[in-house]
């Protein structure tokens, strides 16, 4: 399964990644960062094909997908 | 720098090609100015036509392509001054020329250039104002030169008085701008820009050309480079040289970082800019004097008015037997206050002929406040003073 990395330092909680993910692999968490923004987190990563749309559409360079070979 | 970039860098390419050969010429001040600029290494000119400065850009449009440089007629003076910023950081020495209304439009870009420490040269062939004013001779921008731009930034401004000086002082302006990383103004007037006189081009190796200090030459690597640090005048990496310079004109740290704002950081940033120029006034500013030794009265002047003033002073001494000294400000800004106090003793009367209603009289008064009995302005609007006029004022005030 691929791994989702959220950069807490840069994320501003806009949740665009949650909306654009075609695999519905990302969801809003209950966690907030030091700025007070809600962080996204992994949902069901089974469908993630590392299409990169979340990385591409993130306004804050705060998300990264790590492809994991199994 | 990549190969392609090197090949296209107009500043390096065609260096020393098609320069005016040493010798005698009979040229207009406007032409001498461009020849001086080309001699200094200027390879970009951008401007907008305005009387009485248009001759400078017309001549630039002929000469620049001949020396491998580039000339462009921009859409307005705002664009022309902004263009210089881009050209300078792109690695070229760049020039524009304008007249008073255009000079007003350039003030924002001048302020940005002071803050970003961008070397560039602006020629202002002043014309009378306010408004459209008139198109003849004027010295009404000397205060705008110093105070026209927003913010607490100092400036260097020179005042040539002959065709030869239009050449020499344009070179000097480029040298000062490169040496101090700051915009430099040449405050010319219509008579100087349009008169024709002998221009002597000295042997090229006798002409001093100063280029900006580079981090490459000082062994500073990109990762340690501070575009506004290292020294009171920072070494300057041009764009395209691999130093990833982030040009900012907001209050910044020495590396260009803008997130660490504090009143102290603000003070340090601006105070250095101010000190860079005002603290080195004695190195930058030049004064010319004659008959100063123990003189009881003094004429202080600048620009082409100095020519008339000198004529009047000589006649007043010879025919009137009056004890009158002569002092010319070659550099208007930074104002050499201490130097002036060093060389001017106690006098009775100071006369200040200017083609305005008495502008430079103010800093002169401030500098010499306890050295004179009275200070008198000799104003002339729109026309160069005649020797008779200055002479009559000398007789009126001194006798």
């Amino acid at each position, binding site marked *: 399964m691929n791994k989702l990395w959220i950069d807490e330092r840069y994320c501003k909680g806009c949740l665009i990644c949650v909306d654009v993910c075609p695999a519905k692999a990302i969801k809003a968490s209950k966690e907030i960062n030091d700025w007070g923004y809600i962080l996204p987190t992994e949902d069901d990563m089974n469908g993630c094909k590392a299409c990169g749309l979340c990385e591409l559409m993130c306004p804050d360079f705060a998300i990264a997908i790590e492809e994991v070979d199994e | 720098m990549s190969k392609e970039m090197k090949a296209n860098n107009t500043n390096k390419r065609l260096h020393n090609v098609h320069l*005016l*050969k*040493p*010798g*005698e*010429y*009979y040229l207009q001040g406007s*032409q001498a100015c461009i020849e001086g600029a080309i001699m200094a290494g200027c390879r970009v000119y951008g401007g907008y036509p305005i*009387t*009485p400065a248009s001759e400078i850009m017309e*001549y630039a449009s*002929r*000469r620049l392509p001949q020396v491998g440089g580039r000339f462009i007629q921009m859409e307005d003076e705002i664009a022309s001054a902004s263009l210089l910023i881009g050209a300078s950081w792109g690695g070229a020495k760049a020039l524009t020329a304008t007249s008073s209304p255009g000079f007003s439009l350039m003030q924002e870009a001048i302020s940005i250039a002071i803050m970003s420490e961008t070397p560039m040269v602006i020629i202002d062939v002043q014309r009378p104002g306010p408004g459209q004013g008139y*198109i*003849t001779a004027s010295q009404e921008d000397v205060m705008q030169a110093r105070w026209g731009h927003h913010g607490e930034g100092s400036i260097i401004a020179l005042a040539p008085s002959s065709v030869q000086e239009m050449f020499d002082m344009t070179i000097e302006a480029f040298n000062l701008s490169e040496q101090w990383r700051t915009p430099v103004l040449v405050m010319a007037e*219509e*008579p100087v820009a*349009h*008169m*024709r*006189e*002998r221009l002597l*081009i000295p042997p090229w190796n006798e002409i001093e050309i100063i280029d900006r200090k580079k981090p490459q030459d000082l062994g500073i690597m990109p990762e340690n480079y501070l575009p506004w640090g290292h020294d009171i005048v920072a070494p300057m990496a041009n764009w395209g040289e691999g130093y990833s310079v982030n040009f900012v004109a907001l209050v910044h740290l020495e590396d260009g970082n803008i997130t660490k704002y504090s009143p102290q950081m603000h003070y340090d940033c601006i105070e250095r800019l101010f000190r860079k120029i005002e603290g080195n006034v004695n190195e930058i500013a030049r004064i010319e004097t004659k008959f100063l030794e123990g003189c009881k009265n003094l004429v202080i002047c600048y620009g*082409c008015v100095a*020519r*008339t003033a*000198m*004529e009047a002073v*000589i006649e007043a001494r010879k025919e009137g037997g009056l004890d009158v000294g002569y002092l010319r400000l070659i550099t208007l800004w930074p104002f050499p206050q201490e130097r002036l106090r060093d060389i001017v003793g106690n006098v009775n009367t100071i006369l200040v002929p200017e083609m305005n209603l008495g502008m430079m009289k103010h800093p002169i008064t401030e500098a010499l406040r306890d050295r004179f009995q009275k200070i008198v302005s000799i104003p002339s609007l729109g026309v*160069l003073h*005649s*020797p*008779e006029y200055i002479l009559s004022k000398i007789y009126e005030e001194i006798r």
Partner: protein
Amino acid sequence: MESSGFIESEKGDGYERGDEVSHIERYEIRIAGFGGQGVVTIGRILGEAFTLYEGKNSVNTQSYGPESRGGACKSEVVVSDGEIRYPNVRKADVLIALSQVALEAYIADLKEGGILLLDPNSIKNMPDRHKYQVYEVPALEIAHDIGGARFQNSVALGALYPQIAHIINESSLLRAISENVPVETVEINIEAFKRGMSYVKRDEGK
């Protein structure tokens, strides 16, 4: 007439000077007329001739503004073997007046006994012939005769030359003409100069 070119590469290598001429403290020449008569060009030619080919100092200034393109127009040359400080005419030694308006505007600044050169066909009211040395040349008429109105300035210059021959060589003026007029008109301009020179006559009055 605009200069044919600008910086020629061989220029500035040093010049052969003409024969020795008189030393001058300050000599002032004013040329006045209307735009299009080549007033500015005469000034430039004189200035260049004095400076580059005679080794004297000279300052050439011109009236500036809308009037230099139509309307009144003047050009001035101040010559000296010493330093020229004030660049403009104070009291002219020479006035070339090519129109009635120009004559009226500038006659007051001409020295008593100064040289006044004019085109009699353009002047309605002749000035006091006993106060000045008045010379006449029908510059426009001669110019038309050899090629057109635009050569009248060279005719006038030719007419002036004999009066200032003590301070400048003919060769210097001819060289300055050929450097400052379009290449294809150099010969006609020189002919105009010679015609002016041979025609000019002193008007002693009656």
